[in-house]
């Protein structure tokens, strides 16, 4: 297994409009196809929970919001016109509900919390070690990172590597976690994530960068620990 770049993502779509696959799925849901329903629920549930947790005060509330969202999605299916992709439509319903619920719980998370990890002072490279000693250029590596080729690739499917990555994701600040899950795990495009989470392109990229840096660090520690 080789690490081809860019990674193949089955459904890299812009925020809209809906694809043929979306239209077929909507048709199947309207027709009462339980397998199609469970498939889409399964595909989005974990990321919906993480997005809901950006606004909801507790995980239990976030879970309620996700369940309410599926009911609202089903009720609204007849009105889905395919101007956006099905998933951005579902997540816009989720975010609206999570926000309202968060406000009602009077523990509304201010919008600025979505910027966590964007503030200066936690620059991405901080965890790396660079030298300004003379002999070569300043700001160079103390010891060179080495390619993982062949060391990670064949192990990507191993439970330990997956557990390492999952634990690193769970340890991230909520906004970084939501962005990296949607972008890198679910394969959403940057415009879809910006639209759904109401982030600027720049902030989305900073959150993604900080999150990737921390997941890479966790993988490095796992690999070096062998």
């Amino acid at each position, binding site marked *: 297994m080789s690490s081809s770049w860019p990674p193949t993502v089955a459904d890299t779509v812009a925020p809209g409009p809906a694809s043929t696959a979306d239209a077929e799925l909507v048709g199947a849901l309207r027709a009462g196809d339980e397998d199609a329903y469970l498939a889409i629920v399964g595909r989005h549930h974990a990321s919906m929970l993480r997005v809901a947790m950006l606004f909801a005060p507790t995980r239990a509330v976030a879970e309620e919001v996700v369940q309410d969202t599926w009911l609202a999605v089903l009720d609204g299916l007849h009105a889905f016109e395919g101007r956006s992709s099905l998933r951005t439509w579902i997540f816009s319903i989720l975010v609206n509900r999570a926000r309202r619920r968060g406000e009602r719980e009077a523990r509304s998370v201010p919008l600025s919390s979505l910027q966590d990890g964007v503030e200066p002072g936690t620059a991405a490279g901080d965890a790396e070690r660079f030298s300004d000693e003379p002999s070569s250029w300043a700001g160079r590596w103390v010891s060179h990172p080495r*390619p993982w080729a062949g060391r990670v690739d064949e192990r990507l499917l191993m439970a330990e590597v997956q557990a390492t990555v999952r634990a690193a994701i769970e340890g991230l600040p909520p906004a970084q976690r939501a962005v990296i899950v949607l972008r*890198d795990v679910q394969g959403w495009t940057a415009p879809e994530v910006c639209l759904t989470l109401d982030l600027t392109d720049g902030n989305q990229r900073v959150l993604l960068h900080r999150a*990737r840096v921390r997941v890479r660090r966790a993988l490095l520690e796992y690999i070096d620990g062998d």
Partner: protein
Amino acid sequence: MAIDRTVPPPGGISCRELVALVTEYLEESLSGPLRTRFEAHLAACEGCAGYLDQMRATVVALGRLPPEDLPADVRARLLDAFRTWQRR
């Protein structure tokens, strides 16, 4: 022999600076001139090439995570909701 403290880094950017730009590079959002300097540095610096490789491998690893299982109670509740919705 005096050590030259002013050796410019390849591409005119340091490793520290390059690391902070890696996601912008992978997202193809670096400006043309900065991208050229980034790539000039990469071509001359084994450490940064290794770092970029590791970041790419990280993204690949993230993309290969299998879907998380739907907890049985959540699955049951959501399926109930679907059946109720259909009967309406």
